[in-house]
């Protein structure tokens, strides 16, 4: 079977992509309005939503960039993953119920709609939409880069495509993504998420078993190799250190609920009471799938430091190289398809919220109403965002995970105070919301543009998020809050 390894892997990935295209065509028939395109008419069942929530959270950032970061820096980045239990708790305690209620009462389609409903400010809606576009471009670039890297690693192992370029891989993988997102909108997105989520759970579970058997002594031997070679890398804060790790825990743990691609899914469930099932399924699904993140990264690091394998040319190759070399061909096929699943499930969510921001939220904020023929413009915007993100992906020289962390930080810093705190505190004001978003964007982008190195590896996203939370609450304390609309006021009492 070994001689068919590449054929099996390629076959599994092709089958997966054909499935995505099929779902796109099927969903196109069910997508008749902008509401169907953006929020699936708020009629999804709990299992669909829970798998969509978790698969959107764990992306190419986690499945490709995560193992790469563990390979490069040891355990540091695991703080981004273990905070998921807190992240989902924050999302469901603070956001899920109220955002779903607001969606039903105000017929909202996006997070900027919710922000407008809460604060009554078109400027706050506009800033939220702009934040979403900026974050989407950075984050989607991560996904496209991850997809292309995985596809390149598969195709370059075949004789026919040995010299295939990264650009060609970006074009091929993006074409599939664009097709099903443009045709089927969020309906295609969430139903592919179901398959993708299940594949990620299976992939995570099978990979951790495989990783445990690479060395005869299992993970204990892996740990002993690393303890001997460095030691810090396999200890809880990795090579980057305690403050960087804990800053990531803060940003990812408290910031998950501010991710618009996750929070938007919380508007789509059929019944409020479904949240009772959605949270545990999402948490445990994520936990199993995320085992791939740590197990592949740490084993690849031990293989290289233990002189068993050659060093990787780039950390992001950790997952593809591990699967191509150490996994059973059938497992490698499933997991490679799972990698694509992880990447695409997040990318399609970004395309959806990005398109909503451009053709629904910004026009509403600027001229008080959305565009005519929203559905057509949504499809055009989806293509435009994809192309722009692909250009960013090709032009960036950053690791997949670091590009993703920037996108996550942009969302978390700008939207956590405005949405998480704002939906749970009547004293929050519109001016404070706008100030918090502006401050967070200024910090995040200043650090990025001027390449400022924050001491101790502390993430700029964390600094921006902490500052924006303080600005938001502090500014609100200084103002007398306006009376809330009656429906929002009643929702916030429940």
């Amino acid at each position, binding site marked *: 079977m070994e001689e068919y390894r590449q054929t099996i892997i390629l076959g599994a990935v092709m089958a997966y992509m054909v499935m995505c295209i099929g779902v796109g065509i099927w969903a196109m028939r069910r997508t008749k309005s902008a509401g169907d395109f953006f929020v699936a008419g708020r009629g999804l069942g709990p299992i669909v939503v829970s798998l969509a929530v978790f698969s959107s959270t764990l992306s190419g950032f986690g499945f490709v960039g995560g193992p790469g970061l563990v*390979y*490069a*820096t040891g*355990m540091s980045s*695991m*703080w981004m993953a*273990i905070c*998921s*239990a*807190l992240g989902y*708790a924050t999302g*469901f*305690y603070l*956001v899920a*119920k109220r955002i779903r209620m607001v969606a039903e009462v105000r017929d909202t389609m996006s997070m900027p709609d919710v922000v407008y409903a809460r604060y009554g400010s078109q400027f706050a809606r506009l800033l939220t939409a702009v934040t979403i576009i900026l974050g989407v471009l950075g984050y989607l670039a991560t996904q496209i880069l991850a997809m292309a890297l995985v596809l390149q690693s598969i195709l370059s192992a075949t004789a026919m495509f040995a010299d295939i370029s990264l650009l060609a891989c970006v074009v091929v993988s993006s074409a599939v993504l664009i097709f099903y997102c443009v045709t089927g909108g969020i309906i295609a997105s969430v139903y592919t998420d179901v398959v993708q989520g299940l594949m990620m759970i299976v992939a995570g579970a099978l990979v951790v078993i495989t990783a445990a058997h690479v060395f005869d002594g299992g993970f204990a031997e*892996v*740990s*002993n190799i690393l*303890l001997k*070679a*460095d030691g*810090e890398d*396999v*200890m*809880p*804060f*990795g*090579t980057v*250190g*305690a*403050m960087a790790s*804990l800053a990531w*825990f*803060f940003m990812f743990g*408290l910031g998950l609920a501010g991710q618009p691609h996750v929070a938007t899914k919380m508007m789509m469930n059929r019944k*409020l009471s479904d*949240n*009772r099932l959605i949270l*545990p399924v999402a*948490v445990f699904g994520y936990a199993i799938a995320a085992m791939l993140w740590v197990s592949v990264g740490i084993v690849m*690091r031990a293989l*290289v*430091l233990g002189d068993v394998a050659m*060093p*990787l040319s*780039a950390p992001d190759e950790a997952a593809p190289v591990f699967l191509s070399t150490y996994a059973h061909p059938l497992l490698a096929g499933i997991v490679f398809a799972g990698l694509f699943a992880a990447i695409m499930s997040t990318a399609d969510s970004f395309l959806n919220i990005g398109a909503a921001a451009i053709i629904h939220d910004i026009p509403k904020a600027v001229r008080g109403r959305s565009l005519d023929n929203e559905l057509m413009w949504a499809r055009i915007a989806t293509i435009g965002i994809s192309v722009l993100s692909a250009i960013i992906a090709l032009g960036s020289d950053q690791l997949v995970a670091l590009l993703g962390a920037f996108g996550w930080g942009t969302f978390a810093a700008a939207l956590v105070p405005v949405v998480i*705190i704002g939906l*749970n*505190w009547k004293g929050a004001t519109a001016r404070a919301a706008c100030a918090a978003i502006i401050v967070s964007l200024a910090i995040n982008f200043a650090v990025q543009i001027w390449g400022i190195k*924050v*001491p*101790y590896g*502390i993430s700029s996203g964390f600094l921006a998020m*902490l500052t924006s939370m*303080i600005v938001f*609450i502090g500014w609100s*304390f200084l103002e007398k809050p306006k009376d809330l*609309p*009656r429906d929002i006021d*009643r929702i916030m009492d429940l």
Partner: protein
Amino acid sequence: MKLIHVVFGLLLVVAGITGYVLLSVPPENAVGLAHPTIAGMRLGGDGLARLGSIGDAPFYFQIAVILLATFMLAMGVAPKRRTRGFWLFLAGGALIAFIVWASLYLGYKHYLLTGETGLFFGVPVPTAWMLGGVWGSFALFDIFYAVAFRRYFLHPDDERDFEALVAEMKAGGEAN
């Protein structure tokens, strides 16, 4: 004192500790060092030296974050539903998170001082506290959500009130 004041105070504590760390002089390899021969790989180096200029700031930082997270979670439950039982659970959850965090941090400090550590499930004990303990301590809050959903998070009375609101809106009742 309202919950929002506690949350604001804890954010200032987190900011204060972060400021203290940022103002300290970072040791030479504060974020590790590049591997001498393997491109893209970093090593941790002397972990004790890396903590030298900031002491136990990370320990107190995370305690503040655990408290902040707990009080923020409490904000998600309507004030009328925050019963004694609810606060008891939150206090218990936070206490477990503290114990896990203290075990992790003290185990790590012990390793830095002695160079010795045991293994648990194939990973060093402090790392096991991180992977299983930190995740697990917050997963308790997720389990609590599912178990006590109807009592605290979507009480049947609240659901009825919301349905009444939706009915009013559909019947043409003004919303704003």
